């Protein structure tokens, strides 16, 4: 939950999550080679043209890039608007509107724009537009887009192609944030949103579709390849698959987990996804760690040891990865020395329970209903914890209610959700556990040393130095188990075989500027 952590998100989450977002140095964003999307042999030459119809789990709430809050807002916004940098950092920072950048110190960032940039309506995109967009986010923005710019003390236009940000405090990971500041022209009108992204707005018919067409003045030569991009709000996952299999859409934003295997075998539709072990996407069980009985360390450890993560992997039909650490196993910051709950250890869980002095107890588990798998996951937890004398009552809640009760009111004991923090270890550990951010505040776990480690991680630049810091932070958080990680939540997309060039990213963002249709 943080900057662009969503699935289950709200503005409120962003706020804190984003506030959190600091991290990283001028890092080499090392990611294992497997992170590269494997979409078969390198395709022939992209052919331009065609329409790509994409399902969306829900109607966007707004097309104003400075007010977006849901994952669906982000999907559409990423097509219409560009930022200074591309937002997938797994391969390191890549320029989007910015052609180069430098940072004399961790509080000052200077970006040099590409020459000849234009908005969809033809007006030139200059450093003034960057400054305007930052100011607009601050005055009219909400949620995550606003929080991103709150750290900026001053935006200075040095010349039409150069802009300098001075931050209120050092933030070695500011580049990640810069990627998410979307640029709009000074006469921006939400009803006809103009940006500089690969696709330009045509129409939004509520509950029917959002239609975009190719922006021929896009800075990347030849891109986008598609003539049109159409988003179709389709809440039902099975319905999405029917639309895809019958050729009424070319792309779906999710694939129902129970059907993934059958769909793969049938071969009529291709399933795209992130290789396992790379994405920081997780199922996440929050515990109310400042109130009995979950303020008892041994109870939390017992719960984490009692949960059968292999069984949970079956719930997601083998998609995703077995993990109990928020840092994904293939991440450079992953610490294999920290406590692992990957293997269920029932005897140990029972021993911890009896040592805790907490007798038979009933806990309420509030879980989301936004994805089909939350309910069976909650039921597995319920069955697992029954074996260590914890009775679990399940309370299914819609996302708005869940966020209000669990994250805002803190009226919960156990809360089950899904999270995708940004890729930097500061964001991952901070967004999930730090008392200074949304999830951590809900959990109520106070650990000074852990917070100090996070601060230190933001101030050092070399990856090896940062790794040492986060190794330590993982030792703390894995031992204390304030929040419990329950495997990687799989991110899957469905596409017709004709869809080429789609590259899924670890933050569940969909990028279509490189997509083309084979004939």
């Amino acid at each position, binding site marked *: 939950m943080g900057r662009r952590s969503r699935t289950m998100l709200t503005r409120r989450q962003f706020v804190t999550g984003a506030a959190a977002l600091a991290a990283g140095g001028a890092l080499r964003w090392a990611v294992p080679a497997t992170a590269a999307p494997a979409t078969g042999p390198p395709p022939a030459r992209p052919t331009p043209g065609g329409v790509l119809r994409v399902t969306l789990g829900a109607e966007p709430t707004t097309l104003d890039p400075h007010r977006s809050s849901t994952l669906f807002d982000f999907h559409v916004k990423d097509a219409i608007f560009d930022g200074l940098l591309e937002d997938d950092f797994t391969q390191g920072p890549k320029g989007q509107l910015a052609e180069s950048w430098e940072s004399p110190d961790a509080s000052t960032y200077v970006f040099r724009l590409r020459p000849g940039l234009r908005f969809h309506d033809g007006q030139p995109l200059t450093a003034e537009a960057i400054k305007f967009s930052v100011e607009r986010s601050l005055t009219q923005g909400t949620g995550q887009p606003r929080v991103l710019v709150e750290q900026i003390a001053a935006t200075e236009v040095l010349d039409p192609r150069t802009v300098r940000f001075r931050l209120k405090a050092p933030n070695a990971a500011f580049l990640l944030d810069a990627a998410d500041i979307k640029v709009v022209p000074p006469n921006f009108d939400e009803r006809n949103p103009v940006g500089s992204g690969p696709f330009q707005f045509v129409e939004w018919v509520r509950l029917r579709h959002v239609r975009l067409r190719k922006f021929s003045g896009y800075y990347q030569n030849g891109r986008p390849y598609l003539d049109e991009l159409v988003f179709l709000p389709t809440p039902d996952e099975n319905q999405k698959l029917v639309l895809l299999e019958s050729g009424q859409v070319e792309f779906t934003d999710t694939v129902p987990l129970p059907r993934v295997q059958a769909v793969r075998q049938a071969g009529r539709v291709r399933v795209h996804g992130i290789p396992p072990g790379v994405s920081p996407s997780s199922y996440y069980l929050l515990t109310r760690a400042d109130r009995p009985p979950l303020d008892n360390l041994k109870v939390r450890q017992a719960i984490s040891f009692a949960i059968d993560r*292999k069984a949970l992997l079956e*719930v997601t039909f083998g998609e995703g990865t077995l993990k109990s650490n928020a840092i994904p196993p293939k991440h450079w910051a992953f610490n294999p020395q920290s406590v692992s709950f990957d293997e269920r250890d029932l005897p140990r869980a029972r021993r911890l329970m009896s040592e805790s002095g907490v007798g038979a107890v009933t806990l309420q588990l509030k879980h989301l209903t936004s994805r089909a798998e939350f309910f069976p996951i909650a039921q597995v937890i319920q*069955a697992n914890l029954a074996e260590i004398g914890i009775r679990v*009552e399940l309370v299914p809640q819609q996302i708005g209610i869940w966020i209000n009760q669990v994250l805002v009111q803190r009226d919960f004991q156990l809360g089950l959700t899904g999270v995708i923090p940004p890729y930097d270890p500061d964001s991952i550990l901070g967004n999930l556990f730090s008392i200074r951010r949304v999830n951590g505040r809900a959990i109520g776990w106070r650990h000074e040393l852990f917070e100090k480690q996070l601060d230190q991680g933001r101030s050092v630049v070399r990856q090896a130095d940062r790794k040492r810091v986060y190794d330590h932070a993982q030792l703390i958080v894995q031992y204390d188990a304030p929040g419990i990680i329950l495997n990687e939540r799989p991110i899957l997309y469905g596409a017709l075989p004709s869809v080429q060039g789609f590259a899924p990213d670890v933050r569940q963002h969909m990028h279509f500027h490189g997509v083309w249709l084979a004939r």
Partner: protein
Amino acid sequence: MHTPPWTRAFAIPRLLGVLRRDRGALVGALLFAAVVLAALFAGALTPYDPLAVRMQERLQLPSARHLLGTDELGRDLFSRILHGGRASLSVGVVAVGIAATAGTAMGLVAGYYGGPLGAVLMRTVDGLLAFPALILAMALTATLGPSLTNAAIAIGIVTIPAFARLAQASALAIKEREFTDAARACGASDLYVLVRVLLPNHLSPLMVQTSVSFANAILTEAALSFLGLGIQPPTPSWGAMLDTGRRYLDQTAWYSMAAGGAILVAVLGLNLLGDGLRDALDPRLRGARTARLAEEHSG
């Protein structure tokens, strides 16, 4: 033992006679008896714990090991269907118990006394009736909190009007009968008349209504559980199984079919039984049937 004449209408002994004559009612009774027995002896009929999660065996098709296959958490479906019957039946018993007791009492009192008291009672019932039953039950369970007990209470409350109106109609008719006058002439108190005269003579329609309402209660419970407002996991419930099963229609259609089949058998059994009882016990219908037969055979 001496039985006063006004209590002779007692209907239970007729039940066996009805079952002998009416094949539909017999089938209904057998189906329902099977459901009841299966629920009572669920533990003995299946070796599986209905709550035991075995993920490696999830979503299996029916086999010798698992007669109806397994659910999404590897739990034995046959076992869950049988245990689910307990929940459905207990909701039925509690709900109909509440409705029959409260409804009949309200109806008899309203019908017997009439006047302002009767008006107040029956307008209250009409008020209840004005709400669609399922919506009212949903609102009640949402307010009380989803659980088996609360579902039973909610269903009981929404079923009160059916019993109350029936009892009031009976009371209006019976209080004009000669044997009621006779009882009163013998110095019987109002309470005696209500309990020993009106109630026994109301038992026939009450039995019919009970069987039909019981079936409705099972259906409503299934609907509430389907919507997540009824019995809470991990306790098995037919309605919840129907809901979950539909997500796995691709993998095993048996899941939903088993849950739906169980609901079908229980409700069909009760309705057949109820129909048979009504045919046999309702004097007007009995007359109509005879008249119809006479018509058919006269030409």
